[in-house]
């Protein structure tokens, strides 16, 4: 095990409803690196993000995932999260009636507890959140609303990035963060993500299109197709996809 690697995926196979979707994924992400996974619809991109984060119904049938050198495949989703894995959702979920502040604080304090640190009270937490929210152009009014309820597409994605900023994960997965965003919103969200690039934080950016990667420039790009990584390269691979489409890449593999 390389001490530099944050996330290591070995020969990972996984099923959904009994159908194998991932057929042996291998991937290693080192500390501070940003990797992108690109792939056509149905290639297993979202499945990969759910398998990594431990969603019920996504069953690992072989291989291993380790986070910071420890296997996490037997851990529950909340354990993985507290161990530093963060997933920015493609479709953030509405929690009617649940105050944003209570929700954010519950997750923030769960992380502090895990690290043996003292929890913060409501007043201190409000200050912390406001400081982070400001950087992302999130208004106080939006913070007062129930979690994701009545948020626009752009607001939902910014709220995900806000949570990432608060929870300071060592490994962040961004699942199609660009979907449903117009050009301006994409810019704000990408800037937010770039602010969070850090030598201690690795990222896995999952996307269908190259356009996100011109804002969040990756160190490495992988092409996922039919449940396997069929090609890896540097950021120029993303441009290749843009030009030739996934079909061209598949042929090359």
């Amino acid at each position, binding site marked *: 095990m390389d001490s530099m690697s944050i996330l290591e995926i070995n020969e990972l196979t996984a099923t959904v409803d009994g159908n194998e979707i991932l057929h042996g994924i291998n991937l290693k992400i080192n500390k501070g690196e940003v990797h992108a996974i690109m792939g056509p619809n149905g290639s297993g991109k979202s499945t990969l993000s759910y398998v990594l984060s431990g969603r019920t*119904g996504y069953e690992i049938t072989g291989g291993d995932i380790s986070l910071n050198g420890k296997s996490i495949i037997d851990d529950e989703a909340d354990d993985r*999260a507290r161990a530093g894995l963060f997933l920015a959702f493609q479709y953030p979920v509405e929690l009617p009636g649940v105050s944003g502040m209570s929700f954010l604080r519950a997750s923030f304090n769960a992380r502090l507890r895990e690290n043996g640190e003292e929890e913060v009270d409501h007043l201190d937490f409000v200050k912390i959140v406001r400081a982070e929210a400001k950087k992302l152009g999130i208004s106080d009014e939006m913070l007062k609303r129930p979690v994701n309820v009545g948020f626009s597409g752009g607001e939902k994605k910014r709220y995900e990035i806000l949570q990432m900023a608060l*929870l300071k994960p060592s490994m962040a997965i961004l699942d199609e963060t660009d979907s449903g965003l117009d050009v301006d919103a994409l810019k704000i969200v990408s800037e937010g993500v770039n602010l969070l690039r850090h030598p201690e934080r690795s990222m896995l950016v999952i996307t269908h299109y190259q356009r996100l990667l011109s804002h969040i420039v990756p160190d490495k790009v992988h092409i996922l197709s039919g449940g396997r990584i069929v090609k890896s390269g540097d950021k120029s691979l993303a441009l290749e996809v843009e030009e030739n489409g996934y079909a061209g890449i598949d042929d090359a593999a």
Partner: protein
Amino acid sequence: MVATVETISAVEEATGKYKYGFVTDIESEKAPKGLNEDIIRFISGKKNEPEWMLNWRLKAYRHWLKMPEPNWSKLSIAPIDYNDIYYYSAPKAAEKLDSLDEVDPELLATYEKLGIPLNEQKMLSGVAVDAVFDSVSVATTFREELSKVGVIFCPISEAIQKYPELVRKYLSSVVPVSDNYFSALNSAVFTDGSFVYVPKNVKCPMELSTYFRINEQKTGQFERTLIVVEDGGYVSYLEGCTAPQRDENQLHAAVVELVALTDSEIKYSTVQNWYPGDETGKGGIYNFVTKRGSCRGDRSKISWTQVETGSAITWKYPSCVLKGKNSIGEFYSVAVTNGAQQADTGTKMIHLGEGSKSTIISKGISAGKSQNTYRGLVEINRGAESARNFTQCDSLLVGQTCGAHTVPYIVSRNPSGKIEHEATTSRISEEQLFYCLQRGITEEDAVSLIVNGFCKEVMKELPMEFAVEAQKLIGISLEGSVG
């Protein structure tokens, strides 16, 4: 209310599902099991009641004998043997007490354990407590403070002796003895409860609260509460309830009457956490309660807020009779059922006065194999010109094996009346849970967060400290309901 901090830590420390299931080992004095006129004479004698009170009880009993047990609810109730119940049980030596120093230390310890210190120095910012243990009131705090402003807060047994004219005037003026099977039974055998009287233009300076505890085996608790607020007065009253864990069912059949006169307001909050029985439905309290308020004066207001998490069966409809012009009735309810619990609860808003208004917000949460029914009546009568009602009835299902039912009855006899009814049913989705888990929140905390979000509109009606306790309770009562 009551010492939230202590309650929460008591809850957290205790193990097992129902955290109030312990039994206090205390000697008690009981009347023989069963119900007959002699038992009623015994109870009345124990309380040194005047003749009129005994006759009132006997009349109620004779009437009860002729009544059939009701069976119209959506509940499955194992037969109740009314002759296998103790109708009177009192901790020994709990006679007349002048100060808390004379209360049995075992009893004080019990309330301490429940999170309700009766020691006045220890109490949180002025909540006056009446503690009812089985059939008798064992302590009432802050009475002197209250009497300075003319507020009477005492056990009803004491009120019958000290303020007979008030009691005679208002007792059963809201819930007639013959109103229903359980109100008649209660009238015959009630043993204690609280009496509150707020004189003209007095805003009661502190929250009043009664804490009910059933301790003895095979004992029924039949308490009677009467609250009267004169013109321009205000009172906020809270009640909490627990009982030990026992295998047999125990009956709790209370009657609560509220009288609000001109321009007065009564806020009545309940956090009910009687023992719910085990997973299979063995044991638990039958909570069959008649609660009704009369908005007798113009612009008077009665507001019921209830958080019902306990009891094997909850069967009650805190109601308002809106007689006064522009009077206001409110009902805010959260009913949580889990395991094999059943609840058939809701309200009745009877509009008689011109311009009377009512609001009903009901949140039902069902988990496990439980059944949760909202049943509510909104009735606008001929004289209730321009009366209005708004009803919102939401059900939340947790898991696949529970049931939620909504049974609204709407009667309008005046064409100027406006009635709105909204209802929704939703489920905690796997997606919502996963979203919380992915943020490092445990499954139980996630359910509690989502459920408390669902109940928010009701929780905000509770006095602050009570709300914290209630939130915690809801979380606890749903433990193990997902996954």
